[in-house]
């Protein structure tokens, strides 16, 4: 591909924590999690990265989020996982919300280099507000094809209040839905 992408650093695997796997997210699947804030999505992402996998000994992750990488590192203890900030600032680990080409290519490159990896794409509402829904949907669908082929897992938290029912249906068309009721917190 002739597109640019953001390059994650080497040695991206997190140390195991000795805790159990709590989320049975299947390889090759995209999961749309209806929730706000994206606590369940981050918990699942960190839990998968910190535990052994049946298919692959250790899983590598890629997170793209509206939250600043320093905040994610601090809260979730991620030391090696590449984290990209969806923002309009310039910087090495920043992806502009309007640059869907770089965003898509960064994720696809990660999938090609990390079979069985796990991707967290947080900030779909922000992508929609900076582009339009159909363009953002195309990114999800395009990446989803690579996720299926690369036996990766992708977690996409969405705030259901930000989408109309038709848009939610289109997002969930080729994905597994995790219901808001399951994301109820305590």
């Amino acid at each position, binding site marked *: 591909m002739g597109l640019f992408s953001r390059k994650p650093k080497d040695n991206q695997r997190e140390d195991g924590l000795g805790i159990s796997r709590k989320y049975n997210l299947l390889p090759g699947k995209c999961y749309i999690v209806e929730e706000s804030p994206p*606590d369940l999505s981050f918990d*699942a992402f960190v839990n998968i990265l910190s535990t052994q996998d049946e298919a692959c000994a250790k899983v590598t992750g890629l997170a793209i989020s509206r939250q600043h990488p320093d905040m994610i590192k601090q809260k979730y203890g991620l030391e090696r996982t590449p984290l990209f900030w969806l923002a309009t600032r310039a910087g090495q680990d920043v992806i502009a919300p309007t640059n869907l080409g770089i965003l898509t290519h960064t994720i696809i490159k990660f999938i090609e280099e990390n079979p069985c990896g796990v991707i967290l794409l947080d900030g779909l509402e922000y992508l929609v507000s900076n582009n339009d829904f159909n363009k953002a949907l195309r990114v999800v669908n395009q990446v989803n094809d690579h996720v299926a082929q690369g036996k990766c897992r992708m977690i996409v938290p969405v705030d259901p209040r930000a989408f109309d029912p038709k848009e939610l249906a289109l997002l969930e068309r080729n994905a597994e839905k995790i219901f808001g009721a399951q994301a109820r917190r305590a």
Partner: protein
Amino acid sequence: MIELLVRVGFHDVAEAQDFDEGAAIFRKERPKISFVDMILPGKSGVELTTEMLKIDPKAIVIAMSSIVNKKMIRESLDSGAKDFLLKPTNEIALGAVLAMWSD
């Protein structure tokens, strides 16, 4: 947390605010499974875990915290906690822990 536990089918639940109350309730009630926040007023969750397991070595203790502090998680597992839950937790994570560790 209590509301979530009730929702996943656990109705006999007690709650404590700190180390002393936690240890006292644990001594009295002898719960099979306990969820211990690692950050408590006064003594830490690791100390409470150690105390609970001194009282009942067969008790199941699950550590909880609102941040993933790897050092703290390892300390809690070393002190005898069986697993870790990130706060705020949810039905899926809680259900998985309960399925794994409760009867």
